[in-house]
């Protein structure tokens, strides 16, 4: 099909051309900035050469940064104006989508999220350009180099048949390989009828508006310590680079940590995982760099105070950034395939991503190897009674923890390299697998957090340490033992670990509270670290209690399947028919019915709780929903009732979507219940469970032959009309007749509604008749299969997040004050 000479109507080709120009400009400018910063860095500081190179470099970086901002702006305009002639816009947005999720459309695709990353790097680069003084040239040379690679991901050009990058501005829908042979391409006015495919319903959530930019700012920020560490090795200023890099590192730790937890909040609210963390490969890929990053920040603190662990500061700063690149490779190369729910699909850029990854790995290794012997060595060993010794141990535990998580997450990569067919553990098994490693690591880290605050750099008096640690240790031990007894954690080998983790969390929290009041005398200025550590302890405390004590209250007692082994005893789903009440935990729950609101079907589930006197003490309605999306598949989203001490999470596993409002559910089985008599006149109505019955008139002229009662003296038919809840109308006619003075009836059934009518009596004086109706006991009424989980004390986790953010902010502010 040739479409070259069709004049398409209503296309906005200027937007794509503008965007494409900006892509190329940003790439070239980044390359120029990198080269000229590189030349500037190779001149002597503040020499004439450096100043003139730097001038060009700054100009290039400004051009680069503003073209990136321009790209972001252009893409936003294209999305908000629904320019569906572009494949990216068509693919990720639609007209019916609420505008507040516009941002989510922006970064739903690979291209948009690369652009987001590039954007943050450009912002960070501008700030660094302004504030890095003598570090500007080498550091920005590295940042610009990273930008060259990132921009190349957006180029979308072919070099010798190999496609470099994917460009959201150049791919037109009518030229897209999947569509270019379709008939619509021949229609010059195709745009007038076109709507976009729309945003994945799971991403239509407010967390998805703020989680990706936060996470990507965190990812992007790892470039700062990386660039400073490389600059330090390159310019042989082995120690000086840390002073400017340190506040950035803690800023990044805070932002990345927040971003990861926001992802957890999204999963908790919008996904059907049944929790906030599922050890999904994509989650792991964002957690692993954070662990290394935290390690890097802490060894930099050691080095600042004691001048030790220099190699570790380099190693961890470099590896944090490289792990971000590795995470990018894992999630975007398509290698995770079906082992993850939310990895991106492959855009054929895995080769490019690998080049990117190995380029920076090789640079790091070469620079470290060349400089290794020149790094100043520490003179003596750390004392066992020093803070730095245990901080280093803590950083190493974090590194090992990161290693273990990456290893299991990398199973698809291992399969690729070694040709094996390993399958990573999923669901319950993933929990067991990761927890058996990560719980001991967490216990170690928490105990180190508790103790090392009371240790001084260099040398601590053991007596003083023991005196200080005694109170928090005592409180934590007593509380942990009491709670563990209450929960019955000492009875089983596996749950003893919970008791130990509980103790470690409490110990970390109370030790830091004690430190804050006793040593710091409640002064906030120096308390950033303590407060952040309290927050961290609370996050793990909330996570461990809500996970270990989570209770699936939707227990189904039917069917014993444990003969096949414990993992099959999955009884967490319960069936609820409309208006049936079931007891679930402390609650009586009733499925009240469904409502369709826009694209969502809400299933109202009423929860009632009886107190000791049998009165209902608590009632609320949860409305989990299923989002109907013909193009994307129907997606269930949970609903959660938040209490201060617990959350009740309710999630539809399966619901009947066939009968959506128009059709009543089919009734095919079940016995008729006891009939119910109605003494009525013509024109009266009475109710059944699923409809309204009207007695229209009495028919005395019934065809006796046809009814099989030729000998009847009297025969009267009651003409009934039944309106069901969906407004559909049914007819029924039970007949009353008398043969040989014996009154009798002919029943009339409405199978679809499960109703059976009989006509028993006519009272000529009042004109009233007796019509009885029986309904089927448990026909197939509308039903849902649902799951309900109680998460106790999950609020401790969210509170911990906020406290950790506050603490880290205080620490960064304090550090910046000192630096100036």
């Amino acid at each position: 099909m040739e479409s070259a000479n069709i004049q398409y109507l209503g296309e906005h080709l200027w937007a794509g051309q503008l965007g494409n120009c900006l892509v190329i400009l940003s790439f070239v400018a980044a390359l120029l900035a990198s080269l000229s910063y590189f030349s500037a860095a190779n001149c002597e500081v503040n020499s004439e050469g450096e100043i003139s190179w730097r001038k060009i470099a700054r100009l290039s970086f400004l051009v680069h940064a503003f073209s990136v901002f321009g790209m972001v702006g252009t893409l936003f305009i294209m999305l908000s104006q629904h320019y569906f002639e572009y494949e990216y816009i068509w693919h990720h947005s639609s007209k019916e989508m609420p505008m507040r999720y516009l941002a989510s459309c922006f970064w739903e695709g690979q291209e948009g999220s690369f652009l987001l990353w590039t954007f943050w790097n450009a912002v960070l680069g501008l700030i660094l350009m302004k504030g890095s003084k003598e570090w500007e040239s080498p550091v920005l040379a590295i940042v610009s180099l990273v930008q060259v690679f990132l921009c190349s991901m957006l180029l979308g050009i072919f070099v010798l048949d190999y496609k470099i990058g994917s460009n959201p501005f150049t791919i037109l829908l009518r030229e897209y390989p999947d569509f270019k042979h379709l008939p619509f391409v021949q229609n010059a006015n195709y745009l007038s009828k076109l709507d976009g495919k729309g945003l994945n319903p799971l991403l239509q959530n407010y967390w998805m508006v703020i989680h990706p930019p936060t996470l990507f700012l965190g990812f992007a920020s790892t470039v700062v310590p990386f660039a400073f560490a490389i600059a330090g090795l390159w310019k042989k200023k082995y120690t000086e680079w840390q002073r400017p890099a340190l506040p950035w590192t803690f800023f990044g730790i805070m932002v990345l940590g927040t971003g990861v937890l926001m992802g957890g909040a999204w999963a908790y609210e919008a996904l059907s995982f049944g929790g906030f963390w599922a050890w999904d490969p994509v989650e792991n890929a964002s957690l692993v760099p954070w662990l290394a990053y935290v390690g890097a920040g802490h060894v930099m603190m050691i080095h600042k105070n004691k001048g030790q662990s220099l190699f570790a500061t380099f190693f961890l700063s470099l590896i944090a950034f490289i792990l971000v690149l590795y995470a990018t490779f894992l999630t975007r190369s398509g290698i995770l395939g079906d082992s993850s729910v939310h990895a991106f699909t492959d855009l054929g850029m895995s080769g490019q991503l690998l080049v990117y990854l190995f380029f920076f790995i090789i640079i790091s290794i070469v620079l470290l190897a060349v400089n290794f012997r020149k790094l100043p060595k520490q003179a003596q060993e750390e004392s066992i009674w020093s803070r730095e010794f245990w901080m280093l141990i803590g950083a190493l535990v974090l590194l090992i923890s990161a290693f273990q998580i990456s290893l299991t997450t990398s199973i698809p990569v291992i399969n690729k390299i070694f040709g094996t067919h390993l399958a990573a553990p999923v669901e319950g098994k993933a929990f067991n697998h990761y927890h058996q490693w990560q719980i001991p690591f967490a216990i170690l880290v928490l105990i180190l957090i508790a103790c090392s605050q009371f240790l001084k750099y260099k040398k601590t008096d053991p007596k003083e340490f023991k005196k200080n640690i005694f109170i928090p240790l005592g409180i934590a031990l007593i509380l942990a033992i009491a709670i563990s007894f209450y929960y019955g954690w000492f009875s089983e080998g596996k749950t003893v670990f919970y008791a130990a983790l509980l103790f470690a969390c409490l110990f970390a929290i109370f030790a830091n509270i004690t430190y804050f009041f006793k040593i710091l005398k409640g002064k906030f200025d120096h308390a950033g670290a303590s407060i952040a550590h309290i927050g961290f302890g609370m996050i793990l405390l909330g996570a461990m209690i809500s996970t270990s004590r989570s209770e699936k209250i939707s227990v189904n007692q039917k069917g014993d399947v444990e003969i096949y082994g414990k993992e099959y005893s999955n009884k967490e789903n319960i069936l609820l028919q409309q208006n049936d009440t079931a007891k679930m935990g402390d609650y009586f729950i009733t499925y009240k019915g469904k409502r369709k609101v826009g694209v969502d079907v809400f299933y109202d589930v009423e929860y009632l709780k009886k107190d000791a006197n049998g009165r209902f003490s608590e009632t609320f309605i949860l409305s989990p929903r299923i989002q109907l999306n013909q193009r994307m598949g129907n997606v269930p989203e949970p609903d959660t009732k938040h209490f201060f001490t617990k959350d009740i999470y309710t999630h539809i596993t399966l619901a009947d979507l066939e009968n959506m409002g128009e059709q009543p559910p089919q009734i095919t089985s079940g016995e008729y219940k006891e009939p119910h008599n109605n003494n009525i006149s013509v024109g009266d109505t009475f109710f059944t469970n699923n409809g309204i019955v009207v007695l229209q008139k009495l028919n005395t002229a019934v065809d006796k032959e046809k009814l099989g009662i030729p000998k009847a003296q009297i025969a009267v038919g009651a003409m009934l009309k039944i309106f069901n809840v969906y407004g559909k109308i049914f007819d029924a006619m039970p007949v009353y007749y008398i043969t040989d003075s014996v009154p009798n009836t002919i029943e009339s059934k409405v199978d679809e509604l499960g109703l059976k009518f009989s006509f028993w009596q006519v009272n000529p004086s009042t004109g009233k008749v007796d019509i009885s109706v029986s309904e089927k006991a448990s026909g197939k009424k509308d039903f849902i299969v649902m799951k309900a989980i109680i998460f106790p004390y999950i609020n401790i986790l969210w509170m911990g997040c906020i406290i950790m953010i506050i603490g880290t902010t205080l620490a960064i502010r304090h550090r910046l004050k000192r630096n100036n």
Partner: protein
Amino acid sequence: MKKSHIIGIVLIAIAIGAIFASLGDASTYASFSTAQNHEGKEFHVVGKLDKSKDMIYQPEKDPNIFVFYMKDSDSTERKVTLHQAKPQDFEHTEQIVAIGKCVGNDFHASSVLMKCPSKYVDTKQQKI
């Protein structure tokens, strides 16, 4: 021996332990016939739903049992009993990974992973 050496050795030991444990915990992708030859051992079986045969789900009897027929990549067909609720939109799934073990001729899955064509990539052509 210096403290740092001891720490180094301990770390390497943990790392090696982690490697072996991770590989040990991993299950393997296999076909139904392999799973049947190792009855009782857990496998991941990749395959397609046989849409010509009925899926059985009777939530009023037991909402946590769902039976369907699946063809693996060697076209071997087995009855699969999933000990969970029927996943929403199961009939639209393109590829299934059933995780579980063989008991006799039947496969008992503790969970399934579905790959819905519609979830992230739309293969349906839009009518214009």
